[in-house]
């Protein structure tokens, strides 16, 4: 196979750009979360470092990097060290398949604004999100602590259950777009967004990704009222930071995928495609922060019953109805 050096350079530039944007965005999402929560709770939030507290993420990063990196007695050394990376890497890899803008013309080349346009893109997302479980499970188990172990067992059960409804809620999207390729799914929504045909699937997907991110109505694995900090209780310094950043990267990635599957991806009125896509992603991030500021935490049995007895059957029913509708419409 012959590779054009310009193609390789463009690809590397794209990867570097995606890395830079998502890592910065994740850092500032932490800041935004603290600010928005402060507004909701009638406080001021971080406002000391730099103008309006805008340099707070940088200060946090320096603090995390300079903290002591310790390991509890009896912890499983290698798994304890590896687990934070296992949590963050799948979240980063998901960005490889998300199309974030319309194709560009650069130096006589057509550049897809997407790192890898796989024709099993949607399945890659499902696979990676199922691998994200290992970070939570092994991190809590390797810590040799009861709170951490309880947190990771809860995390395992929760992620496993909600993955099912998340995967099932995406089946109607594939049926409508007739493709697993994310760029085809976006192209199929040029006229009408899938949320119009599939409001139920959208709601199921939204609830499931909230559970996949371990965000507040579903933050049982790290419930601070009962389990100190759940699966990452024993972590400090940048290892804790990796878990934390992984969580925010996950929010961005899943927001981007929700926009891709149901809100037309980069299609949108007036604004240029990339801006349109960013607005949708940030809207999802804001929604998650808003929910965190508003809702209380579910009880564990409520969480399991809701996932298995309501969401999953509804998603199955939705697939059946969509299939009949597609067949009858011809």
């Amino acid at each position, binding site marked *: 196979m012959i590779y054009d050096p310009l193609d390789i350079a463009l690809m590397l530039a794209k990867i570097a750009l995606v890395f830079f944007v998502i890592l910065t965005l994740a850092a500032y999402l932490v800041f935004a979360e603290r600010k928005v929560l402060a507004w909701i709770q009638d406080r001021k939030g971080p406002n000391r470092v730099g103008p309006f507290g805008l340099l707070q993420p940088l200060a946090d990063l320096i603090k995390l990097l300079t903290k002591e990196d310790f390991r509890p007695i009896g912890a499983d050394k290698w798994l304890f060290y590896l687990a934070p990376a296992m949590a963050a890497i799948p979240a980063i890899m998901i960005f490889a398949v998300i199309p974030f803008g319309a194709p560009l013309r650069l130096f006589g080349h057509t550049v897809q604004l997407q790192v890898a346009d796989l024709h099993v893109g949607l399945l890659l997302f499902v*696979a990676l999100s*199922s691998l994200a479980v290992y970070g939570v499970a092994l991190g809590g188990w390797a810590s040799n602590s009861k709170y951490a172990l309880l947190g990771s067992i809860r995390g395992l059960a929760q992620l496993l259950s909600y993955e099912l409804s998340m995967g099932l809620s995406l089946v109607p999207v594939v049926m409508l777009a007739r493709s697993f390729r994310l760029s085809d799914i976006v192209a199929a929504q040029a006229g009408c967004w899938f949320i119009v045909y599939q409001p139920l699937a959208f709601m199921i997907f939204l609830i499931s990704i909230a559970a996949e991110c371990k965000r507040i109505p579903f933050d049982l694995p790290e419930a601070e009222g009962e389990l100190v900090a759940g699966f990452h209780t024993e972590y400090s310094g940048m290892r804790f930071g990796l878990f934390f950043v992984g969580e925010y990267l996950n929010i961005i990635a899943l927001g981007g995928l929700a926009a891709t599957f149901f809100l037309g991806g980069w299609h949108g009125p007036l604004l240029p495609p990339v801006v349109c896509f960013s607005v949708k992603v940030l809207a999802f991030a804001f929604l998650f922060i808003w929910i965190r500021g508003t809702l209380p935490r579910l009880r564990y049995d409520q969480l399991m019953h809701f996932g298995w007895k309501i969401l999953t059957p509804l998603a199955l029913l939705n697939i059946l109805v969509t299939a009949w509708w597609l067949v009858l419409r011809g």
Partner: protein
Amino acid sequence: MEAYLFYLLAAVTVIGTVLAITEKHPVHAIVYLVSSFFSLAAIFFLLAAPLIAMFEVIIYAGAVMVLFMFVIMMLDVGRSGDGLRPGLRQWLPAMLLAGVILALLGMMLAHGGWPAPGAGAAATLRDFSLTLFRQHGVAIEIISLQLLFAVVGALYFGKRRGP
């Protein structure tokens, strides 16, 4: 390029599997097995079968192994020392079966084997599903019925009997 990648991935798969068998601690064994599955998925990808690669990760690495881990963590096995080491009685049938498979594989290789599908021969999703559900529809139905029986059976055994 592809050949080097293949040998690298194949080495990771084999070493991962061997370590998974010899490792005493069940959680470590699971981690080795997952990495082995992952490189196996990458090999499927190299063989122009991305769909199989994804299924390998979703089903084996993402669901079956996670369930194993869940059970191991809930029951907290693995701290019981060497009491779980299999003896010759457990080893022998497994070794015999492995020997039969290896012999068959060797015969196939000696016959010349099959040519590896090139990158151009990538089966599309549509071809794959048409073959699966048109040509092998009955087999698929039988397998799904069997799975249904298994689910109902598990439900029956798991049900609490009487007060």
